[in-house]
């Protein structure tokens, strides 16, 4: 019984093993990799994708998708920059609120479009939204890149804890991300809203006929994805010091976020996925990028390795599930 318990606890950690393997490979290939400061860098580099992926995960669980999270992050940053330069607002609270408001509103609109227009799938509407937001960000800032944000705004993306004596510090952005992840975990597993999110993804019709307002669940999910995107936008500003309105269309923010979720066990068909898998997925992507940069790999190698890892990660996951099934099957008496 105890042995079984242990196995049950360890099983969901399997992706962690894949991550650990990747870390070991990278450490062997590069001596700089396994240093404390580099580990902190990896965490630092995970935060933006982590926030975007958290929102994306919620939409994926409902069998949806949000292709506008990346441009939404950029728009939120642009909205903050806009009121800063137009109205000379320097109060960080006001600026941050503006960003969160912009991102969440966009998410809300995504949710309303999906539910009120009764769209079959949010792929196209959020793709359309991606374009609209890219245009809006350019319009707001008249294509200008804006810098000079107050410290309070930059804090989340740039501050480090316990910095000093050779230690570069523990990134606040990663801690913020972890807090969000715990919140998402609790939401998904310990609340009725969370269980409704899974149910909507598994069978929206049955969920609706069980007396659950599926529209409200979906609207919440997209608004939450927008909220997460806004925080990602704030971190982008903190990390880079500027709000660049043209970044939305040129970045691959969405694909990275989706990859993190799917590597972590979410599925396009909905009803599946959890936030810790997503964490591992996001870390895996950062580890690969970081390790390859340390090795000074060129774009071609980087692309190929990232692609291969994505494919292998999913293949491993499928294998693992299959062998798990088999184990349980043979154990049946």
């Amino acid at each position: 019984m105890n042995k079984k318990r242990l196995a049950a606890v360890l099983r969901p950690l399997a992706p962690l093993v894949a991550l650990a393997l990747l870390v070991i490979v990278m450490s062997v290939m590069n001596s700089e990799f396994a240093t404390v400061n580099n580990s902190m860098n990896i965490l630092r580099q995970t935060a933006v994708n982590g926030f975007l992926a958290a929102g994306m995960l919620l939409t994926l669980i409902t069998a949806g998708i949000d292709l506008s999270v990346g441009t939404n992050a950029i728009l939120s940053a642009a909205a903050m920059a806009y009121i800063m330069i137009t109205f000379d607002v320097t109060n960080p609270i006001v600026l941050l609120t503006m960003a969160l408001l912009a991102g969440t509103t966009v998410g809300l609109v995504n949710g309303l479009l999906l539910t009120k227009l009764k769209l079959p799938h949010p792929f196209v509407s959020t793709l359309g939204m991606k374009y609209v937001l890219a245009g809006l960000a350019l319009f707001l800032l008249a294509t200008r890149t804006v810098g000079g944000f107050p410290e309070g705004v930059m804090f989340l993306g740039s501050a480090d804890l316990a910095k000093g004596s050779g230690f570069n510090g523990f990134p606040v952005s990663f801690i913020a991300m972890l807090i969000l992840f715990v919140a998402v975990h609790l939401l998904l597993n310990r609340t009725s809203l969370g269980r409704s999110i899974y149910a909507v993804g598994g069978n929206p019709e049955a969920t609706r006929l069980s007396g659950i307002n599926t529209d409200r669940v979906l609207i919440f999910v997209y608004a939450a994805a927008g909220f997460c995107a806004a925080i990602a936008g704030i971190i982008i500003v903190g990390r880079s010091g500027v709000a660049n309105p043209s970044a939305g269309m040129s970045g691959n923010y969405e694909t990275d976020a989706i990859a993190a979720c799917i590597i972590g066990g979410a599925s396009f068909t909905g009803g599946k996925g959890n936030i810790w898998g997503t964490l591992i997925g996001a870390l895996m992507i950062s580890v690969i990028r970081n390790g390859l940069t340390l090795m000074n790999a060129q774009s071609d190698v980087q692309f190929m390795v990232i692609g291969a890892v994505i494919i292998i990660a999913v293949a491993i996951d499928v294998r693992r599930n299959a062998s798990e099934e088999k184990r349980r099957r043979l154990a049946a008496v």
Partner: protein
Amino acid sequence: GTGTSETESDGSGNSGGDETIKVGVVLKTLSSEYWSYVGAGVEAAAEDLGVEVQLLGPASETAYDEQNNMLETMLADDAMDAIVIAPLQPDSVVSVLGGTEKPILFVDTDAPFENKVSYIGTGNEEAARTGGEAAAEIAGEGAEAAWIGGVQGNTTSDQREAGFIAGLEAGGVTVVAKQYAEGLADKAASTMENILTSNPNLTVVVTNNDEMAAGAARAADAAGRELVIFGFDGIQAGVQNVIDGTVTGTVAQDPYGMGYKSVEAAVAAIKGETVEEFIDTGSKIITSENAEDYLATLREQLGE
């Protein structure tokens, strides 16, 4: 196309119909600050010269097909008297131009088109080389440098890479790392963090644009490293960073002047006047010494 027509329009209206000179301008994109300066120059020239311009640019500097489509659409427009292009992909643009009889001018980036009227600009490579030299001079011989590019394989990024590296090496600086960050500031910050980790002796970083220079600067600052950082483009935020001292310098190519002069040259060509085959708009290294002045000029040009 109607070659030369004597038109005096006051610029307030294009009511002249067919008689108004119409110049098409296709830039690399309109969705970035640098290109909005070129655009501002184009529009100022149009106003001053009383001609009509159609100013276009694809969604991003990697939207190659889109630029070709725009060009094609413009070539099919009989009312268009001349076309100014900033080619994303010079060879490709030449093949789209085919045997057109309209006067064709290139701005910012040259292309091997046989019948071109003029090229207005400074080569990206050339400008970047001066930037590399300036960075090498500040850092001193024997320093180690890194390059953070946009998209590898993209013509502009590749040209700036070649120029920067040539300049640095001429100054005795070795380039120890070459990485690419999609032109994005936050990705450049991540890339910088990683380059710093694997290159403890690094003292110079040159980037493909000012946004990435800003990101790299923040990463270096957070890691407590003093670096010579050079950007490219000379946009306001970039120049401001130079003034603030977070970034060492940037390479400015007088985008406003490029835009203005290209329309000037196009109109001259339409009117049958002789136009120089190469109009050098020069480039400027912006450092703390001239940054304030440059920012003031920029603002003036943009009418702010």
